[in-house]
């Protein structure tokens, strides 16, 4: 079995002696700060939300209501996702941010979560055999 990780060619890590302030500043740009960049065409078609998206919005509101986070913290946590911010759908950011908040604040542990995901997968497989 081959590894699922196919490595990209390694990017050179900047060496400290040529890492000037301009390069540092550019490196520190926050991932959501995209104003002025080419973004391609925007679809203007109405789209119905997927059920998991609606569930995500409800989870986010409940977390605010129960005092786990605030809306600004949700925004910050989605920016904290780094490269994942740009590669998952819009609602996916909120879902990952909510998950991370629950783990960071010790409401759940990652092993509890992965166990639960396994359990739900098993249940789902029994209900709808392929």
């Amino acid at each position, binding site marked *: 079995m081959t590894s699922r990780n196919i490595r990209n060619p390694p990017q050179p890590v900047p060496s400290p002696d040529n890492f000037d302030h301009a390069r540092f500043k550019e490196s520190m740009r926050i991932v959501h700060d995209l104003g002025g960049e080419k973004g391609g065409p925007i679809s203007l078609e109405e789209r119905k939300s997927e059920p998991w998206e609606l569930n995500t919005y409800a989870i986010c509101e409940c977390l605010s209501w129960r005092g786990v986070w*605030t809306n600004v913290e949700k925004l910050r946590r989605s920016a904290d996702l780094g490269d994942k911010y740009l590669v998952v759908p819009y609602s996916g950011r909120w879902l990952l941010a909510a998950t991370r908040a629950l783990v960071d604040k*010790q409401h759940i542990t990652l092993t509890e979560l992965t166990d639960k995901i396994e359990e739900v997968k098993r249940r789902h497989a029994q209900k709808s055999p392929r």
Partner: protein
Amino acid sequence: MRRSRHVEIDDERSGKATSSPMFNHLRIAEIAEGVGDPQCYRGKANGPPKFKVGDRLRVKDQPDLFYNQTPGYIRGVVGTVVEIAYESPAPEDEAWGHIDKVEWFYLLCFRQGDIWDDDSPDANPDDTIQAQVSERWLEPV
């Protein structure tokens, strides 16, 4: 769900998720109830607004350390105050749950030509764009 280590015994029956001062966001839900956010911070800023409508202000290019909501494209650009919008904690603080330091937010109007070098025929440099910025990001020209 396992109970958070930050839960106080008092809160257990009411099911409040957090009560540690570090993660006390429930306070925001409480103070905003019925009034809204940022209305719940009205009168909480440390003094009156430093700037007034019509003032020409430059947006400071402060460091990007992990999080803020000041768009890069208005950094260093001069805009005009069109409205003193509201009082609120700075997003940089609120993003980590710190709400004790409240400041004034301004709605600024910028000329597109001051922001973008765009000489395409359909771009009008006199078009404007507005952005909301908190007081700490602003300095008089």
